[in-house]
């Protein structure tokens, strides 16, 4: 069993709509920025977890 990814504890409301870089094991927030390339540049690390901080809302694809 692959356990749940542990990034949630590092993300805050201030990260909504920002890009973040985290350590590989989700222990540490490494960088926050407006773009993916900005956070990669800030960390300078060869291997990082990256993601866009999503708004604190539900998600559903729309249909019509």
């Amino acid at each position: 069993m692959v356990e749940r990814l542990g990034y949630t504890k590092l993300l805050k409301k201030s990260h909504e709509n920002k890009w973040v870089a985290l350590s590989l094991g989700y222990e540490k927030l490494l960088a926050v920025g407006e773009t993916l390339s900005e956070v990669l540049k800030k960390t300078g690390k060869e291997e990082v977890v990256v993601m866009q901080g999503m708004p604190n809302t539900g998600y559903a694809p729309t249909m019509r």
Partner: protein
Amino acid sequence: MKFRYTNTLTSDTKGRLLKRPVLKLELTTVGDRKIYPVGLVDSGADLTLVNIQYAKELGLDVAKLKEKSMRGIGEGTVTTFLATFPIKPVELGEEVIVPACYVDSRNVDVLIGQEGFFDAYKIKFEKDHDTFEITRSKK
């Protein structure tokens, strides 16, 4: 292989944290760095959708890509750019190249849609058990 649903920061109607079926993916950038985005396994998406900012890191020239209109991720239809995307879940250790629409949207990071990935794998959602299972399709 079974995976646990991952907590989000969002609550359901009862105030409990929502959980989603997400995978840690491995991507190799054009600069030969390894980055690990998180992909939502989305059976409701026809195609994989990827934030356009990954295109640059993968060395794609968006100006040369074919446009494809998609709906469901914004008001009306949204222009996306069609290319491929290598889906390599870290724990599965194998890569599937799928068609993907790159989109400039704050609502999309990586959404793993049906074409390509759901053809290559049998995916069983067991939300009632807080797990989902991915196995290679025998087709």
